[in-house]
């Protein structure tokens, strides 16, 4: 007789049990992922990468630049971090078009880009490395850095990076607290779970 069992074969917990070395150590056991840094699409192609892919990845980084670059109210503040001449005037908004997200702020020039996982499409890494713009700060002009000031490489070419440090984030203040008011209002009336 081969009777089908109606219950789970196992019901293990890993997260809810008391903290063990595995989870505390999980940050330091993250595997580095291969990527590459180039100044522009041409340099990328010179490293024997498909020119079309290089152009596409560079364009992606340029588009992200508007969103993620550090933003300053004044040119002086920007140049204090990124050096004289490295913070161009913001582009004037084109009438009738939606204002670019740089929104009249000063941003440093993009000095290069991280070519994501272009060379590494079959990577088994759980977390991917996004293609993104890179910058150089005034006090360390030899190091390529992400918009969130993570150092990436001191020269162009292949590089290993930790995916968790390479995640992109919009370089702008977020507003918070836009969810939760209904539960608050209702729990003021009685103790209520949001579930059921």
């Amino acid at each position, binding site marked *: 007789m081969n009777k089908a*069992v*109606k*219950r*789970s*074969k*196992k*019901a*293990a*917990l*890993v*997260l*809810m*049990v*008391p903290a063990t070395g595995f989870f505390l150590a999980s940050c330091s056991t993250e595997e580095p992922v291969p990527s590459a840094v180039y100044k522009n699409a041409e340099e990328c192609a010179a490293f024997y990468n498909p020119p079309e892919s290089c152009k596409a990845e560079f364009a992606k980084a340029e588009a992200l630049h508007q969103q993620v670059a550090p933003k300053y109210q004044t040119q002086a503040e920007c140049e204090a971090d990124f050096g004289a001449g490295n913070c161009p005037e913001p582009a004037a908004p084109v009438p009738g078009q939606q204002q670019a*997200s740089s929104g009249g702020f000063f941003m440093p020039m993009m000095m290069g880009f991280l070519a994501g996982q272009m060379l590494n499409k079959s990577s088994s890494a*759980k*977390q991917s490395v996004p293609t993104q713009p890179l910058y150089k700060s005034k006090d360390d002009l030899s190091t390529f850095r992400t918009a*969130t000031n993570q150092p990436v490489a001191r020269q162009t070419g292949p590089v290993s990076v930790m995916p968790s440090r390479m*995640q*992109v*984030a*919009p370089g*702008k*203040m*977020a*507003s*918070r*607290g*836009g*969810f*939760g*008011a*209904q*539960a608050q*209002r*209702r*729990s003021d*009336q*009685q103790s*209520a*779970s*949001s*579930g*059921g």
Partner: protein
Amino acid sequence: MKKLRIAERPGWRSYAESVGFNFHTFDGEPYWDESAYYQFSLQQIEQDLEGPTEEIHQMALSLVPEILASEQLLQQLDVPAPYWDWIAASWQSQQPHLYGRLDLAYDGNGPAKLLELNYDTPTSLYETGFFQWVWLEDQLMRGKLPAGADQFNSLQDQLEHRFATLNLLQPVYFSCVADNIEDKGTVHYLMDIAMQAGIDARFLGLDQIGEINGQLVDTDNYPLQSLFKLYPWEFMLREDFGTHLKSSNTRYLEPAWKMLLSNKGILPLLWQKYPNHPNLLPAFFDTEPAATLGAGWVRKPLYSREGANIELVDLQGQRLQVDGPYNDSGFVRQAFHPLPKFGDSYTLIGSWLVGDSAAGIGIREDNSLITKDSSRFLPHIILD
């Protein structure tokens, strides 16, 4: 189906707390109750619960395109018009759903009757999928239950498999009201299973969700590409960030179309489309919610959780009402069908779905005919 007494496992409360079950006792009253259990035959499980659960689910799914095609129905369900196209898009692009729970009245004989669907924010997941499972294994090991006893409970296996195949962009964020201990327990359990399925799962308090140019973001302003939220859709749509739900490039669990099926208005729509179906009770939109309810009827708000704002008049005309915070939507009326009584308690069966598959049951008991968030949870076995 019968209820049998059994000795509690010595020290189960400390064990419960060691595995994150911090709400086993609620306001000093037991929530997890292992002083007794329910026993079903395999035939009762398969023919009366598992099969009908999947059938009712398919019937409910069949209503989604009909609701989306009808402005009148969307209005009747109190779905805000600015979201209609967005909800329709979530259905047309076949955004996958994770789970749901049907509440059934069943006494071991005859067809189980559908009382309602919890298709947006169902809880009691951990108690069903994990703690009840461990109870069975423990009691079998101790020889307190007959060898060969089984349980209708593949919930955790199915959830893990579902997470592994949903193809969500990572990390996947899990959010709820962070200071609600029960909701947070449920979310932690889902995160635990997701991690076992290889997902990078991260908790984000509901009030920590940020917004930049219409994109929802985490505390580092990283875009939320995948978001599980244990928080009612009908609340989110009406809150400050509601409008960003549409513009944000985010895959939600449950998907937006699921809000149509977690609405109590689905009960009259099911009855209209499948009249006299053995698992359904007569149900109607209540056009006169202020009118006195006749004998044999239950009145429920379109949006309600945990038995709140439910009014019931039994066949003898005795009236029972639970107050609550859900008094600002329309109402439905459903024919009264008494919950079976085992000893002093009324018993309700929560029947789970993962994706479109039946995945197990959890049993709730209350001293009254209305099951609430404080109703006790009892384990069950299958034995022939």
